[in-house]
């Protein structure tokens, strides 16, 4: 894979990378829409507040919204960052003083946007086709510890019964079916380590854990099909290239690995093959994403790294 160090504008599906390193990258290179958005809307001048932030462009049927979470609440903007259309303050009512309060984990499902919180509650917002009339539709109660990540998959045909996955600090995964009322389909228990990143693709849940493991589960039943000892440190990000079923895992051990997911034609079991590994020397990675749905290139961000590094296949 060829390494090209270049600033560039990211496509609509973006990182949920740790915002502090991303903010640096944005300020130092002309990643226009991200940089502009950050300079317009981020109220907190201190690195502390910026740390709890996550950013996600939510692609909905009729619009794209930019969603930003922090320890204060949830902000939603039009996709170019020009207008804030919605603000939701986090309810800190029953939090003990020792508890960190924040929102984390953002995903779009149909005309809903799901955002996770420190308490384990998942807020579901109903988004109209246009305008600011956004409503909190539901609060999902499936988790007891802070949400880490949420993944969704566009419903394909009438028979897709599981299209949202939520993950938390204990490693617990909840699989849901979205709708005017969300239904819990199955729970996949944790094993003592956080699950910082989760993805959903064609009925397969891909989860990256704090001990460097990547696990693939059958979404409907929650059965474990694949367990990979993929990394030597906590995984920070997973991403999927949906056209080809490629999975990307990036971790604090400086490595990025690309995997090919498939289903066995006979048994329907999930299978995986290692495609490629890349070492980003001396960089504790914190975000990674494919740059296109065919997975021919990907980009990473890292701690103390002022650049976004992009890798393309030759």
């Amino acid at each position: 894979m060829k390494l090209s160090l270049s600033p560039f504008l990211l496509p609509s599906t973006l990182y949920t990378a740790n915002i502090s390193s991303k903010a640096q990258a944005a300020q130092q290179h002309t990643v226009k829409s991200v940089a502009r958005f950050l300079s317009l809307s981020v109220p907190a001048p201190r690195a502390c507040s910026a740390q709890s932030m996550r950013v996600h462009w939510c692609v909905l049927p009729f619009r794209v919204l930019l969603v930003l979470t922090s320890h204060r609440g949830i902000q939603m903007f039009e996709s170019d960052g020009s207008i804030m259309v919605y603000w939701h303050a986090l309810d800190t009512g029953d939090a003990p003083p020792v508890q960190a309060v924040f929102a984390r984990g953002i995903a779009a499902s149909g005309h809903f946007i799901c955002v996770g919180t420190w308490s384990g509650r998942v807020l579901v917002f109903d988004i109209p086709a246009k305008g600011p009339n956004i409503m909190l539709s539901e609060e999902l109660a499936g988790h007891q510890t802070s949400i880490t990540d949420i993944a969704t998959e566009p419903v394909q045909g009438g028979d897709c019964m599981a299209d949202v996955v939520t993950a938390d600090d204990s490693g617990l995964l909840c699989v849901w079916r979205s709708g005017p009322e969300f239904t819990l389909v199955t729970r996949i228990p944790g094993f003592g380590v956080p699950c910082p990143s989760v993805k959903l693709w064609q009925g397969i849940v891909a989860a990256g854990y704090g001990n460097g493991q990547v696990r693939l589960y059958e979404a409907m039943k929650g059965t474990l099909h694949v367990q990979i000892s993929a990394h030597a440190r906590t995984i920070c990000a997973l991403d999927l290239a949906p056209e080809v079923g490629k999975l990307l895992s990036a971790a604090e051990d400086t490595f990025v690995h690309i995997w090919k997911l498939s289903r066995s034609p006979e048994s329907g079991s999930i299978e995986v093959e290692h495609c490629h590994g890349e070492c980003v020397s001396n960089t504790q990675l914190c975000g990674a994403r494919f740059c296109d749905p065919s997975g021919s290139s990907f980009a990473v961000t890292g701690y103390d790294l002022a650049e976004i590094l992009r890798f393309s296949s030759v």
Partner: protein
Amino acid sequence: MSVRTLPLLFLNLGGEMLYILDQRLRAQNIPGDKARKDEWTEVDRKRVLNDIVSTMFNRKFMEELFKPQELYSKKALRTVYDRLAHASIMRLNQASMDKLYDLMTMAFKYQVLLCPRPKDVLLVTFNHLDAIKGLIQDSPTILHQVDETFRQLMEVYCGLSAGEFQLIRQTLLIFFQDLHIRVSIFLKDKVQNSNGRFVLPVSGPVPWGTEVPGLIRMFNHKGEEVKKIKFKHGGNYVTATKEGSFELYGDRVLKLGTNMYSLNRPVDTQTSGASKNSTSRAQENIAPNPLAKEELNFLARLMGGMEIKNPSGPEPGFRLNLFTTDDEEEQAALTKPEELDNKVINIQAMQDQQRSEELARILGELEVTDQPRWSTSKGDDLLAMMDEL
């Protein structure tokens, strides 16, 4: 952002400070009977360390420290260490104090970054405390103070989940972001590159609880393992042999946080990387700090709890130089950029009877009746008081 980070930050930075001071004092050590009036002896060294450790682990101070709170700015924290370093007969010039703080920060940044598991930052803290106990083993009272803090750490942190430790780790890393001061002992050991970045090894033991990367296991619908494939992961890792101890005494296994300085490996920073740093530091100074008032309150509370045993009274202060010669120290002071000085809030480190009473009274109020945090008017009074210093 975790509100449980400050004790870990403070104790580990304090530990590094003691390692450096101990090494410098030993390096300038003169046998007692041969020493001139202005030279350091073994007795002096022990006294300085005892005074600093005893101030650091003062019960009231620790109580304030362990209260859940956000991390404050590097500047506010630096002021606390300035005061701490002057808790005894030792005096440090601004340039030496700057160098000391740079070394402390880079050392702990390195330790946090290289911790195998987020929870291992607790083992690093225990390593520092174990070593501190070694430095003051002749003083049972101070030893008891340190053990008390040890117990408090165990009580607060040993029950935290992996997710909470990951948040603490992230909070610490944000605090240390963009600091790339080159430390010559790190450069010599090849743990830091010439651009100031730390080397992250891809070999050695994996963290406790992690498997060596390289294996894919596949299962069928019934949960039976049906295939095992190896893949090339690129590193050179081995299994971890044992877990470090989180008890009051025990083998920590982890070497991070132990004393890496010795007589033959003097502490030294290279200043050629400083210009790049000072720009980012200056930028930090220019932005108005909305937490300034809260930081002053925090400092007042902490320093109210700090009992400084030796007022700068009849005894002369002995000056410690962190550089090799006095000329070097002067040079370093001259090359420091102006901007860094202008925005510093000068808080006198001198003992002042009236002010300590005032602070002690305020502190007393906080302790006894659990009053809510300062109202705006009290904060203004404090600011006014600080202005008078």
